């Protein structure tokens, strides 16, 4: 059964930050994306790498009319797996190349300035 547990105070998890919580078999990463909180399992759907140790940033989308034909988007919500560079959106758990290759997401809430994870 999932249980709700204290992660840290919101002050310790500013926008752009991640807290790795020792829960379950692989751990869960709790992310602050521009002030909103999300959590994904620390286990890449590809080969099981510790996904949450990967860099968090944005991604590129096609921009046919601009000179480089690329546009930077979704800044601060894309984690890249440290092993093979697979991209996941931490707000949905979806892999950007193949949405069927997703990772598990969890509920996060804030109460009285404290962050809680249900996992």
């Amino acid at each position, binding site marked *: 059964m999932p249980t709700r547990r204290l992660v840290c105070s919101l002050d310790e998890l500013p926008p752009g930050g991640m807290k790795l919580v020792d829960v379950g078999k692989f751990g869960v990463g709790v992310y602050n994306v521009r002030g909103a909180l999300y959590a994904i399992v620390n286990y890449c759907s590809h080969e099981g790498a510790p996904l949450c140790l990967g860099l968090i940033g944005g*991604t*590129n989308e*096609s921009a046919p009319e601009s000179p480089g034909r690329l546009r930077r988007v979704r800044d601060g919500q894309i984690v890249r797996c440290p092993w093979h*560079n697979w*991209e996941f959106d931490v707000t949905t758990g979806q892999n*950007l*190349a*193949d949405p069927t290759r997703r990772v598990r997401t969890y509920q996060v809430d804030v109460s009285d300035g404290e962050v809680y994870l249900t996992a």
Partner: protein
Amino acid sequence: MIIDANVQPHFRSNAEIRRYLPEAHQLRAVPDVEQQWYQAPGGDYRQDLYGQHYPGSDPETVSRHLFDDMGVDYAILNPLTRGNIADYLLNTSICAAVNDWLLDRWLEPDGTDRFRGTIRVNPEDPRGAVAEIERLADHPKLVQVGIPMQSREPYGKPMFEPIWEAAAAHGLPVAVHINGGNGVDYAPTFAGHAHTYPGYAAFMPLNYFVHLATLIVEGVFGRLPDLKFVFADGGYDILTPLMWRLDTFWLSMRDQTPWVDRYPSQYLPGHVRFCSSAFDGPLDSGEMQRWMDFTGKSDLLMFGSSYPHWSASRPDVIAGGLDDAQRDKVLWRNASDLYGLGAKENAR
């Protein structure tokens, strides 16, 4: 029904092309179709076809061999030109001469209505290539655009895109085939200039993958949903592991080419076909059925005899080891769908 998607008709002699060149280019040096460094043992063409004129140069003889002896119902004629010529405007003129000759000697006089033809264009002259497509696209017997495998840039590069746009707009597939003549080319194999014919013949056809990969990765297929490429020298047997590689790297580095919005291999059914080759596939035909279904190759492959080439293959040999459904697809169904041929026969 059987459709042969790869037949090379030839001029009766190399010089015959001059009758079809415009006056401005008529006295220029034009390389011979056989001008190349790698000669097949015993000659480039089937030994019984050598005579007074070039093998594959007499429509009646070709009809007899294809339609009577091999049981072919329709044959797609894809003539060679004369290599990538440094004067690209001369080359465009040569392509137009080949097209006019094909119409004059093969397609217009053909009472059997079983020959279809190719509009040869020179990709090194994109403006001239588009003009040639516009000139001939409406001819009912010209069913595809033809370009050389040899190219100084992969066909996914942006300078070629106007040609592919014109072909797609007219619903004409683009067939890539190793050309005749020795042009201004890079080394023919990834191992450089082979010393011997087997090295050349085994590896040269695999250059198709460079074109295919760039057409996918540069987003050409994504931008032109109606564009179809036919790789007419075979190589389908190595398609699966190469597509695995493209798919793998796309999963990791999709953000570098975000216009590729699906697995690279998912572009194949809508955009890519192959002609069979005597050199393709496992030697043990017992492995054939399983191998054909990897990467959906049963839906991509069309029988192509390569007549009158020395390694020309018969339909029963190419279909050897296939199950009934695969056999139908390879011998006619895939080509019938691509070229819109044989609706009458299919209805029977």
